[in-house]
């Protein structure tokens, strides 16, 4: 029976336990994970069609009495398989804090203002080329209590399902040039610097709208756990 150990080991994901990220201490498993044999793994996953995301769900600046405070941005990109195929009809869910760095969540009580015109959750379905597009405002950095004077770089949470249960991915998108990035234990939990860089979006003229919004591009690739690693440079 083949096992994970016999397959190409190209681990881009962070380990469960990471001393730099304090919340892992009581939540990361201590026992070794049991390798899932490929022939026993599920080959299907949920499919979400129309009815799960309306066009207005992709505009996080809408749906309230007024406009949210902050820099308007368009965030767009493609959801792809590691084989390069675009994933059409994918449900993409995002959520984020507001421009002041405050989440619309009762657990976030740090002294930054809530914005009555911003909730910060959106979703959409990818088109035939695997493209998604959201309009939102640029999220702020926010403090957390992981270590003294800890601040998370600005980020947007992403959730995609892929083509099968094995491809389910929740991740975070960061912004280019953010000075907090080198100090973030969550991003640095990813050991491969090149893999870290793949979570940083790119400024994008194509989706930048004149006198209206800046554009950022961010592609998501799923299914790479079975990928063959590149030759070491």
């Amino acid at each position, binding site marked *: 029976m083949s096992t994970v150990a016999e397959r190409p080991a190209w681990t881009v994901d962070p380990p469960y336990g990471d001393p730099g990220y304090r919340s892992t201490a009581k939540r990361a498993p201590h026992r070794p994970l049991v390798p899932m044999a490929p022939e026993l793994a599920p080959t299907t996953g949920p499919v979400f069609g129309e009815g799960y995301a309306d066009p207005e769900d992709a505009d996080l600046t809408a749906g309230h009495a007024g406009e949210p405070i902050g820099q308007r941005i368009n965030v767009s990109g493609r959801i792809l398989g590691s084989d390069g195929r675009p994933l059409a009809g994918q449900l993409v869910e995002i959520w984020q804090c507001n421009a002041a760095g405050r989440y619309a969540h009762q657990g976030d009580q740090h002294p930054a203002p809530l914005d009555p015109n911003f909730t910060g959750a959106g979703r959409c379905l990818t088109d035939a080329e695997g493209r998604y597009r959201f309009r939102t405002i640029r999220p702020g950095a926010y403090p957390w209590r992981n270590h003294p004077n800890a601040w998370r770089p600005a980020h947007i949470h992403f959730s995609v399902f892929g083509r099968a249960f094995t491809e389910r991915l929740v991740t975070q998108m960061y912004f280019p040039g953010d000075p907090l990035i080198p100090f973030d234990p969550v991003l640095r939990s990813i050991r491969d610097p090149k893999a870290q860089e793949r979570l940083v979006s790119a400024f994008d003229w194509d989706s930048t709208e004149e006198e209206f919004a800046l554009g950022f591009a961010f592609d998501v690739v799923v299914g790479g756990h079975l990928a*063959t690693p590149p030759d070491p440079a």
Partner: protein
Amino acid sequence: MSTTLPPTPSQTIGPFFRFGMEWLSGRAIPEAEPPGALTVTGRVLDGDGEPVPDALVEAWQGSVFARSLTDAEGRFRFVTVKPTPAAGGQAPHVEVSVFARGLLQRLWTRLYFPDEAAANEADPLLGAVGDPARAATLVAVPGEDGGVVFDVRLQGEGETVFFAW
């Protein structure tokens, strides 16, 4: 299949996902509840045995998807269907993902059914776990009204078996 693109790494779901993920919680997917639906309840517990009140639990068994967000006691609840036996001599089971603050990637576990003792005995994945006491963490216990109870212990005594992929 040759691969061309490096994968996007995982990051934690964080503590503040409720307002973004709750819309799909408790919703039957597909919409029509299929025959044989049963309720799964359980708790997500940390290494101290304390409830995890900020976990997201998702279930997939081949045709029915469910999402549940844990409450202050770490409890989740979803409706699923016991699937027919899967390929490769596998006993009926439900794939389960757990996301939470403090989990840099999801945890993947499986729920097997308590009334399938013979099939569970022959299941290749339960067998691959080795230690029967550990494999038992994957088998739910009977609950009320034909449902089952499936607790997920992230760490420590009685730690649930999780899978590497």
